[in-house]
């Protein structure tokens, strides 16, 4: 199966859906591809259809509306399709329920969102330890608790979201461990208040936590976790404003589960693979594609919108997605300059507001270098290949100057996740303190974006039907 459209949007979160809708409304033929069964992305993830009406009601109404509008549109959707390659021209390759498919398009919008970052500590790879974002997926998509009693730790808005999600689903919380201080949360109050709906929700969440009597330890972080029977013994200690551990008595918790996350990083598989230019922006989650004001990457026809362009949150992603969709319509001749300017002016104003809120949240999620510097020698950093901090730092001492040389010398980032989980931490380790992150670089983008079952990609065929290139010279 294949076919050409004007535009392919990769990713069905708020940015992707709004981009697809905006472009489609301007008359472009649009395909939207996502690996999930329904649109919504991580933030508005739809409950499984099999779960019945009662569970469906728990879905965020914004997500429900998003899906309804998409269904009513002319956008061709391909859910349950995992994109594994993007080639110039453009060609998108995906693996779906019926095997390998590829489509062509004049333009591509990568709306691939964000992925989770965890600053490693001893025991972070144990069963029972999940990411904050991972926990939200469990809660939203399956109504599943990480454990009967959970410790929630890390930084940023997901801390509260997960804590509340667990309480609402009937779980118990041992405590919430926040890297930030209360003052950090209040520092950007005007920006937070610029999105009254979200600000009020945050306040309501804090009230729920208080009523439930859940202790919140500010300026604390996880020191270690170890298995204790079926449970986890988690040690928690105080940190300073930079995230470095400070001496003092650590506290211990025995819990069924630990969910911990240190913010989000932009998912840049497509732009890194295609060698678009990137820049380092710690506030936006690390390496992000270089974009102009109309969401164009440095490659003609390739656009990025949403958290994949740098962490700014769902509200900004939706508006940016719409803007990117219009930009493609404009660039492909479906929207003249005057109409384009008229359409984008009000959107840009609301984008600015949404971005203010997103920036306040992004600040809370920024990686704190001192926390990375405190990672112990024997702590695993690359969990796919079990590469420790010590092995990475030894490679750097032996002369590895960038993350890709570290990858070659230690296998760090060579596993099934392709360095998505450890990449930002490795970059920070290579950089050390006082240097520029730019010099450490980022893991070169490689296909497949997700591991590809050989059997599905290349089902057996008769040997005679194989198209072989000419023989190598003798």
């Amino acid at each position, binding site marked *: 199966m294949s076919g050409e459209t004007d535009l392919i949007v990769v990713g069905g979160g708020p940015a992707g859906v709004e981009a697809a809708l905006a472009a489609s409304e301007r008359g472009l033929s649009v395909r939207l591809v996502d690996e999930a069964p329904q649109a919504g992305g991580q933030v508005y993830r739809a409950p499984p259809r099999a779960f019945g009406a009662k569970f469906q009601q728990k879905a965020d109404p914004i997500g429900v509306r998003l899906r309804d509008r998409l269904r009513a549109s002319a956008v061709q959707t391909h859910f349950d399709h995992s994109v594994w390659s993007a*080639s110039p021209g453009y060609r998108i390759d995906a693996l779906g329920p019926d095997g390998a498919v590829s489509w062509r398009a004049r333009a591509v919008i990568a709306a691939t969102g964000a992925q989770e970052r965890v600053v490693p500590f001893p025991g972070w790879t144990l069963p029972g330890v999940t990411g904050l974002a991972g926990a939200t997926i469990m809660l939203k998509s399956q109504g599943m608790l990480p454990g009967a009693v959970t410790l929630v730790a890390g930084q940023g808005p997901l801390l509260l979201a997960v804590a509340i999600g667990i309480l609402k689903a009937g779980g118990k919380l041992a405590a919430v461990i926040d890297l930030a201080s209360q003052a950090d949360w209040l520092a950007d109050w005007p920006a937070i208040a610029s999105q009254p709906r979200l600000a009020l929700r945050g306040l309501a969440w804090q009230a729920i936590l208080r009523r439930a009597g859940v202790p919140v330890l500010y300026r604390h972080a996880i020191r270690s976790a170890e298995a204790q029977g079926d449970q986890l013994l988690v040690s928690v200690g105080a940190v300073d404003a930079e995230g470095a551990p400070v001496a003092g008595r650590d506290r211990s918790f025995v819990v069924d589960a630990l969910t911990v996350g240190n913010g989000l990083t932009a998912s840049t598989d497509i732009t890194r693979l295609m060698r678009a230019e990137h820049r380092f922006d710690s506030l936006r989650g690390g390496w992000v594609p270089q974009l102009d004001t109309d969401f164009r990457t440095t490659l003609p026809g390739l656009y990025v919108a949403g958290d994949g362009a740098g962490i700014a949150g769902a509200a900004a992603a939706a508006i940016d997605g719409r803007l990117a969709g219009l930009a493609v319509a404009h660039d492909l001749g479906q929207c003249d300059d005057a109409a384009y300017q008229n359409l984008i002016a009000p959107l840009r104003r609301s984008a600015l507001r949404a971005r203010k809120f997103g920036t306040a949240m992004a600040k809370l999620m920024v990686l704190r270098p001192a926390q990375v510097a405190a990672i112990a020698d024997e702590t695993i950093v690359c969990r796919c290949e079990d590469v420790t901090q010590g092995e990475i730092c030894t490679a750097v001492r032996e002369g590895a100057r960038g993350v890709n*040389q570290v990858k*070659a010398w230690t296998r760090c980032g060579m596993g099934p996740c392709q360095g998505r989980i450890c990449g930002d931490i490795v970059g920070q380790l290579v950089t050390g303190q006082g240097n520029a992150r730019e010099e450490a670089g980022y893991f070169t983008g490689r296909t497949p974006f997700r*591991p590809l079952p*050989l*059997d599905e990609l290349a089902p057996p065929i008769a040997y005679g039907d194989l198209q072989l*290139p000419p023989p190598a010279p*003798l």
Partner: protein
Amino acid sequence: MTSDFDVAVIGAGVMGATTALHLARGGMRVALVDRGEICREASGVNAGTLTLHMTRAALIPYAMKGRALWLSAERWLGRDVGARSAPGFSLAFTTAEEEMLVKRAEARCAMGAPIRLVSPAEACAIDPGINPAIRAAAFCELDGHVTAYLTGRGYRQALTAAGVTMVEQIPVEAIESQGGGYLIRGTCGTRLSARRIVLAGGVWLESMLAMLGVRVKIKCLINQLIITERMRPVMRSVVGIANGLLSLKQFENGSILIGGGWQGRGDPIRGGVEPIPDNLIGNIRLARHAIPALGETRVVRIWLGLESETADAMPMIGPLPGMEGAYVIGCVHSGYTSAPYMGQLLAQHILGQEPEMPLFDPARLIDTTPSSVRMSA
């Protein structure tokens, strides 16, 4: 920065690094310059196959020496780079391939490769992972593989210990003759002066040689490599097919590397950019035909390595004619196997010794036709 060296080697792949290492051990003051980091191009991303089945017949004696060097790397390099000896097969699935297999095995045997033809039953007895549907197989005891990505780590340590000055992440922008030697201008204001230069730039040799006004056409192959996730042991030999378009091996960690020179997209400027999906699927189909158990696993990563090839697909190793103290080394077909030996040979020549085996005179490849559009330096 201005430094004086006896020799500056430009290009820190295996050939450049080995040449630099032996020159330094021979008493010379050596600088090794690279636009990126050591062994990050073909030398670090190739399939690491040590195979006589894929070596050009004329290069068999060199490859056998190179293979022995890889397997003894701990002794002369100071670090094991994952080199392992393994039996090797070349398979034939059709009568046409069988004919090709016999012809190629004979030519390689004539050059000293201990290759013999075995029956399908014998091949499957040696390696039960092989598809029993083969018509014939050529077998060689002297194959194996190296963990190519560890190459740079081993070399860097040895070079530093030998006193080689490492100049990484400095692309060379110009090379000028200067007072009986050469001045190398790199980015960031880097200046190096050296009495001799060795150009060891792989696919970038064409532009490097042009800096000296020497015109040699070099073809850039964009070879595709595929690695699977770890899986149960399913094969114990290095497997190829008669036409040379497949290389397959399982490493100790259980991952399987699929190569064979299928082409991807890229060029010397951008490097290897990305695979061509149809070539990827073709390469995988061929691989799983050879080792059917591959169908159980998943592809984790695909990358591309740039291989250089001269007009006659034979190496270019030796002094540049008419240029005192200028040398070139590169373009060895399936060159990783013999690379450490090739570097050793050139170092012998530069140190004034008789190389153990003949070099490959670059003069035959140089375009000497006058050109009105020839640019001035």
